[in-house]
């Protein structure tokens, strides 16, 4: 279902609050916007983000594609794009229009990314794996990272169940899977290349995980690994934080997106869609 732009121009916060420069030219955006797009853009603008017509179009293409692919709200249950340079806007979950929480010292760069200070800054989704229905047989985590300024062993996204264990999306065989710079780079994952790009780890067949990455060179797939053990149910899902001893294990690389939810049926399709949106939102391409 689509909302006619004529209605948007009269009734929606989108039309009232977008800062599009001199004049709002809704007709330039095409015949209609998906109502989910309208909700997202409304929320972003209400939080103080400046959303251009090109960005609205990119969001709409993405949303429509994800809904048609069957991922929106089913496989992808939380989705954050912290590219707006405004904390409240960066914390908005595009799926539920709820909010996560940025903690500690995090820079929200208007250039389209966030990065922590490497010791206190991180992002809390505000939910656990269990809250999202993620299980050891049905889960994905995704993180997009476009710069690397620190050392290894930094987590992009994950959760810690207690003081002695940590569970990140990976394919190491220790947990369901993990996305971290360290495990992207160790021997087992050398085939996936460097720590830049959008990383997706998903349980695709109920018993194996596979780490994939899309960057400026395309999609790279890591090896398949058998999952071992269980996943935490009560610990919070977080990004840019690894919970290990050394303070530099908080990731201070530049992050652009995170998502979590169930297994991704079409990983390549999701990565391609996310990469296209990155370009649509930032006018940049992912690093090669």
């Amino acid at each position: 279902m689509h909302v006619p732009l004529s209605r948007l121009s009269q009734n929606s916060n989108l039309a009232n609050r977008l800062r599009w420069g001199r004049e709002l030219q809704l007709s330039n955006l095409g015949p209609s916007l998906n109502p989910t797009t309208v909700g997202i853009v409304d929320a972003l603008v209400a939080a103080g983000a400046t959303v251009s017509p090109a960005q609205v179009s990119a969001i709409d293409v993405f949303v429509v594609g994800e809904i048609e692919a069957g991922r929106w709200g089913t496989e992808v249950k939380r989705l954050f794009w912290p590219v707006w340079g405004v904390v409240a806007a960066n914390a908005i979950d595009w799926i539920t229009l709820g909010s996560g929480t940025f903690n500690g010292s995090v820079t929200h760069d208007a250039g389209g990314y966030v990065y922590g200070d490497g010791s206190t800054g991180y992002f809390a989704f505000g939910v656990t794996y269990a809250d999202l229905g993620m299980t050891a047989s049905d889960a994905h985590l995704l993180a997009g990272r476009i710069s690397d300024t620190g050392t290894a062993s930094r987590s992009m996204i994950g959760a810690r169940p207690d003081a002695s264990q940590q569970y990140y999306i990976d394919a190491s065989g220790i947990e369901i899977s993990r996305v971290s710079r360290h495990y992207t780079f160790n021997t087992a994952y050398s085939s996936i290349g460097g720590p830049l790009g959008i990383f997706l780890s998903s349980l695709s067949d109920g018993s194996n995980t596979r780490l994939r990455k899309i960057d400026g060179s395309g999609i790279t797939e890591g090896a398949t690994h058998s999952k071992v053990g269980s996943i935490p149910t009560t610990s919070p899902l977080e990004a840019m934080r690894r919970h290990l001893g050394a303070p530099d294990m908080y990731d201070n690389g530049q992050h652009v997106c995170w998502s979590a939810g169930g297994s991704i049926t079409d990983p390549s399709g999701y990565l391609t869609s996310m990469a296209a949106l990155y370009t649509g939102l930032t006018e940049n391409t992912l690093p090669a």
Partner: protein
Amino acid sequence: MIGFVTSEQVAQAILAGVVQAQTSRGLPVYWSPGAYRIHSGEYYGQFFIPFDETMRNTVLHNGNTLMAFPETEQMLALLGGLEARIDLPASAIVSNEIPE
């Protein structure tokens, strides 16, 4: 790391105040300075609340930085004012209880 060292009680009060400042405006809790237990050094057992220039200048909501919220001055007063900040080594908040 630039910020305040304080007791757990005050740290919890600060965090609760930050939450209240957001929810009282009908907003979700999208930001927190965080409070980190100090595990070593001179301030062992106390809590560190980061408050650096990045945090002061970050746009939180609708063009407003942290300093635009009146509650911020109240919280700063509770912590002794900006001049009470220290530069704490990041290693001080490391917990060695967590193995790799």
